[in-house]
């Protein structure tokens, strides 16, 4: 299924935005592979929230300003976007790479947000210098990447042969953007852990039980670094619970940040 996408310009950057549903506002920041595969979760969330799901600069068909080179740029973009959408007391939800961006936004300003939800988020480092927390997908064969990312690798399969040039271009740009922002240090900001104490809104850290990219142990440490954060496990899911278990993820978020909570 395809989301209805509009083109908006925020602080001079033209990006795609999918907006749907009604209810309290929710800003969803996608992972390293963009929004593809997460439509069901977004539509489920739209039953309870007014959902805004941008495609971050550099990903998909969104512009990449020449000056953008680090996740700081995306964090400030995200805050500008929240202002542009005039969000008030919104839930800020980030998955995988988008979780890193959400965390970077939250340490800068939570003035437009009421809750923070991180789903299998990247962005921090806990291990020593010889221990990598985040699986190096750029050193894995294609088949092993799928095994690392999904509880059931068949769920993550994309039929490349049937994709349009436009879809393939978006896919290639996703991988380039992930590399631009996350090559070195590898998918984390060494300083982020030190600043997570600044998150001053309720936070939920959700984690896929079979995540082979960043372990549940990493997720627990992430939650422990955020004051008062809750940690919850999503069963039968890997690194992308919103793809593998869309209803369960929407349920966790609704229970945490929905109108009735």
């Amino acid at each position, binding site marked *: 299924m395809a989301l209805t996408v509009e083109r908006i310009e925020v602080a001079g950057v033209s990006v795609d935005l999918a907006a749907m549903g009604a209810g309290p506002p929710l800003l969803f920041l996608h992972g390293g592979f963009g929004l593809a595969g997460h439509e069901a979760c977004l539509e489920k969330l739209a039953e309870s929230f007014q959902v805004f799901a941008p495609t971050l600069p550099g990903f998909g068909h969104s512009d990449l300003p020449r000056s953008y080179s680090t996740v700081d740029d995306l964090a400030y973009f995200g805050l500008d976007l929240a202002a542009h959408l005039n969000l008030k007391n919104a839930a800020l939800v980030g998955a995988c790479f988008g979780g890193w961006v959400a965390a970077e936004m939250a340490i800068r300003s939570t003035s437009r947000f009421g809750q923070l939800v991180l789903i299998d988020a990247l962005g921090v480092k806990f291990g020593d210098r010889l221990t990598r927390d985040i699986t190096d997908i750029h050193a894995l064969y294609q088949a092993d990447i799928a095994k690392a990312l999904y509880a059931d690798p068949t769920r993550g399969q994309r039929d490349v042969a049937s994709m349009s*040039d436009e879809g*393939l271009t978006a896919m290639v740009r996703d991988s380039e953007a992930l*590399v631009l922002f996350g090559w070195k240090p590898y998918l984390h900001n060494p300083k982020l852990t030190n600043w997570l104490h600044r998150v001053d809104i309720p936070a939920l850290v959700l984690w896929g039980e079979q995540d082979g990219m960043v372990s549940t142990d990493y997720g627990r440490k992430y939650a422990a670094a955020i004051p008062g954060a809750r940690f919850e496990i999503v069963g039968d899911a890997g690194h992308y619970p919103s793809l593998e278990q869309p209803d369960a993820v929407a349920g966790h978020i609704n229970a945490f940040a929905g109108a009735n909570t």
Partner: protein
Amino acid sequence: MKVWHFSEMAYPQAWDTGYEMGTFRVNVPNSHYDPKLGADIYHRHYDEFQLCDELGINIMLNEHHSTLTCLNPAITVSASILARITKNVRLLLLGNPIANRPDPVRVAEEMAMIDVISHGRLEMGLVKGAPYEIAPANMNPVRLMDRFWEAHDLILKAMSTHDGPFSWESEHYHYRQVNIWPRPWQSPHPPVWITALSPHSGRAIAERRHVAAALLSGGIASGMFNAYRERAAEQGWAAPNDRFAYCALVGVGNTEEEGRRRADKVAGYVRTSPIVAEPFKNPPGYNPTPVNVAALKTGPTQSVARVQTKDGRTVDPTKATVQEFMDARTVFAGTPDQVFEQIKTFNQEVGGFGNLIIMGQGGTLSYDETRANLQLFADEVMPRLGDLKMPENPYGEQAERNASAAQ
């Protein structure tokens, strides 16, 4: 036509492991390397380069990392040794992978030292580096060429500034006091060479009037050289043939059979060099987006890059025969007469080129065979290359028109 000799300094003693693992780069443990054998390999190749110095064959070096096909990961080390132990010929480094080296000013210092030690014999190649060099260097493959050109500009400015320190504050590099000692022997700096595959790169190199080098595939050379000539003409100058270089594997013998047998051993280089573990072959961002879109459409990534023959056939270089490599102009082989004729024909096909880089050693070609190969080439082929008739530059008139219009 100037002639250069090049060897990668391979380590064939571990190639069985490379074949077993399905990779010759990045992830083969160096427990498969014996430093005692390695020492002999270095000295053997330096001896061959000294022979080149006596024969009047210029020398080319390159560097690769974490691999059993090239034991020269620090090009400046070998170049420094050769700057001291050779006396006559020019030393081409092709080259410094400057987008993968964190400190361009250090590169400028190293190159200046080598230029001075060699009394001005340095030719300074600056290269993008192959995609599988990204993993060992761990430099971002996205915007790699932006970093390349910034490093290029900084190196040349460091070499050609003589009135004290300057500062450099840009996207990729930051310095407050750039003031290299020594400065290079050659002024304003040693000649610059850049390797290229595409016509787009050919145009970029033309804009800087550097030497453009095509390696190991005749199909690359003609399109790229032509784009260079055209861009030069647009800017009002006719690109002379000394702006172009082509590298081919060469096997020359007293009989055709002997020449081809030598080429077959040298070809061990092209047969192993492209075998790289899948994850390191094409990091995102190294190639432009449309190239990767096109690659996705052709199905699962081909295991190795193909080379094209003159009549449009594609050849898998890991399995190709000498004849197939000859069809792709990757190899010139046979008797001295035959090799000369092949070079002469190729020179016509690509519109003329002033620098022939021969890979006179590669793969398992032994020390004695290498010496014989180089000696025969120097005695029987090289003397004839000076008189090679060069094709007319098809953009010559356009260059003149644009030059006079600009005055």
